[in-house]
């Protein structure tokens, strides 16, 4: 048996151990958010989250296969870039927590990769936690990337078919939670204009001082959702694939975004020899 297999096995065991805990705590959160009865409950939940046992961690090979950055890995350069990005964002936000939207200028810019790893980069810092929301209802990039089953997610929550505890996922990364997009078979209306979305976001930010929320949105050139989401967030980052768009296309996308919220461009997937 190789070391890798050992690690994999260990990781699985860890996940199975942590999952129930995460779900419970997620459920507590969700309940308090939805009901929104009293702040005391919320604060209690916050301390709960902070105290939550978060030892369970996905193995290196698992993360590597999913394309998620690690502290030390073969993709140290990618990790470093995301750390640098994190530092940039923190500087711009003056070290407060925020909700940031990661959108792309064209389909295929892989904003899922950037948003996921941005979240991972925040969570690398032991004093910070992050939440990644997949708001891309049009594609399965996120699910494909993480190998998620089509389980309950943001849509289900917004439609009121699921509680927050059902959709808050732990994928084995410390201090990182994920809300997948959910069942995409019944997309009907613009969910993001509903109060539930706003309440969800406000609740998350207010409750945890060091929680950074990263929203993954579809390409701004293709989707109205992205434009709506821009209004809900504090900052916007636009992803441009290396040698994938013309300057003009990128300019068009930038025009659609509120200047005060746009922090800048992230050039993604720059080829390298090794």
């Amino acid at each position, binding site marked *: 048996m190789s070391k890798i297999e050992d690690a994999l096995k260990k990781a699985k065991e860890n996940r199975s151990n942590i999952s129930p805990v995460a779900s419970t705590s997620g459920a507590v959160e969700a309940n308090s958010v939805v009901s929104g009865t009293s702040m005391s409950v919320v604060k209690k939940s916050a301390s709960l989250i902070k105290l939550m046992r978060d030892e369970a961690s996905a193995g290196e*090979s698992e993360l*590597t*296969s*999913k*394309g998620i*950055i690690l502290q030390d890995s*073969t*993709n140290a*350069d*990618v990790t470093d*870039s*995301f750390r*640098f*990005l994190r530092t*940039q*964002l923190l500087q711009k936000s003056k070290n407060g927590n925020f909700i940031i939207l990661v959108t792309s200028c064209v389909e295929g810019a892989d904003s899922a*990769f*950037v948003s996921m790893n941005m979240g991972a980069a925040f969570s690398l810092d032991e004093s910070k936690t992050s939440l990644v929301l997949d708001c891309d209802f049009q594609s399965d990039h996120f699910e494909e990337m993480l190998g998620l089953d089509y389980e309950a997610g943001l849509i289900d929550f917004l439609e009121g078919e699921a509680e927050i505890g059902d959709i808050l996922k732990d994928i084995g990364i410390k201090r990182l939670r994920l809300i997948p997009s959910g069942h995409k078979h019944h997309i009907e209306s613009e969910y993001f204009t509903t109060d539930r979305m706003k309440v969800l976001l406000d609740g998350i930010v207010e409750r945890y001082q060091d929680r950074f929320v990263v929203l993954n949105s579809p390409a701004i050139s293709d989707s109205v959702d992205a434009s709506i989401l821009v209004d809900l967030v504090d900052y916007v*980052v636009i992803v*441009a694939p*290396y*040698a*994938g*768009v*013309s*300057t003009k296309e*990128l*300019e068009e996308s*930038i025009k659609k975004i509120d200047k005060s919220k*746009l*922090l*800048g*461009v*992230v*050039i*993604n*997937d*720059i*080829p*390298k*020899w*090794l």
Partner: protein
Amino acid sequence: MLYTSQELVSFVLKDCYKYRNKIVFAFMLISVAVLIVGVDWPKLYKAESLIYVDNRNVIKPLMQGAAVTAESKDIARNAKQIILGSNILNKVLDAGGWLEDATTPVEKENMLDSIKKRTVIKKEGDSLIRVEFTDTDPRRAYLTTKNMAEYFVDIGKSNKVEESRSAYDFIEKQAGEYLEKLTTVDKKIKEFLTDNPDARPDMQEKVTSRISALQLKYEDTSLELKETEIKKGSIQRQLSGEAAMTISQSREGNYRKKVTDMENQLETLLLTYTETYPDVVRLRRQINDMTASLEAEIKARDEAIKKAKETGETYLDSSIATNPIYQELRSSLSRTETKIATLNTRMIEIKSLLDVEYDRMRRIEEGDSMMQSLTRDYEVNQNIYQDLLKRRENARISRSLDTQQKGSTFSILEPAKLPVRPFGLRFLHFAILGLVLGMVIPVGIVFLLLQIDGRLRSSRAVIEELGVPVLAEIPHYWKGDEKRKQINNYRLLIVLILSILVLFAVVSSLKFMGKL
């Protein structure tokens, strides 16, 4: 989009990564293709020879100043025409063993064309010619170049001898022609002089002096004639009636004087004597006689005049006719008249002589211009002839010089050598070229594609053109065993490249061993 050189290198490298498989494939294809060309590329050997050519024209210095000769400056072209002329080329074909391959006339013609194409003849300096010949066979290249140079020098030398001989002949011929001309003109002059005795150069002077003498004589004669005529007039006047009358009147006067004298005598006698005194009476009678004679004289004269007037003849008194003075006058008149006639005749004579001289003068002038032109011809021809004689001697010397080959005019300075090393593109060049082109062409294409690809690569462009900061540039993430696959891919590519290098090495060594 203009990239900085740093960006350019980085982007080209990234694109090379993207097209790595294609690039390696293209590298293999191109290098092997060039290698195949190199294997089949014929080895070319070049032999060369340097020839000294004296391009000085023989006739030119000989005829310096006398005739203008055509300049033949382009010795290389002349040499080319001579060497590539059928004369030498056919000999070269025979000697170089070319004809073994070419039997039909068409093949031979093609062979000649190919030789011409492979021959380079160029001028070096003022009087050096380099002959180069390229062939796949070093021995044949050597032989052909050697033969070309040798035949060219042979022909050049014999041409030179021929040239100086023909120069001599030419000058000799010219001298002969001029001599002939000279003789002709000489003969013409003689003939002319025979035909025109007056045309001697001193004749004009003589005739001129003669004319002036004749003119002087004529004038003198005419003057004399005039004088004589006046004299004649005066004698005639003296002899005319009036003169006779004068004579007659003087006789009358004599009578009157005698009458008067006798009357005076009578009166004197009467003073002393009476009327009857015999002397008085004789005197009285004498007076009466005298008076009667006087009257008769007057009457006779008047009648004579009247008669003379009627007849128009000179009245001549018989007394006058017998008068010695009159006789004298008459003879003088006759002499004068004779003189006048003589003078007139002389005038006519002189006049005719003058005419003759004038005529001669005219003829002399005509003859003179003719003579002048003849003399001029003669002089010109004589000058040229003498000049040619001098030059002929020079030509004779240079002819003997060239015949004895003393003046070095054509010589091979550098004889052709058997070429040992092939020239031009050799296999090694192709090997290197193949590898270099195999690398440069695909990368060059990537480079060119990058130039026309307007897609965004540079963060600088985002910042500068859109004014938006670039927060991060995220490299590619190797997912799972992607990196391992990548390394395997590289290994494969390296193996492919190495196999090409090995192929090159093997083919090169085979080539050098002569097995290919």
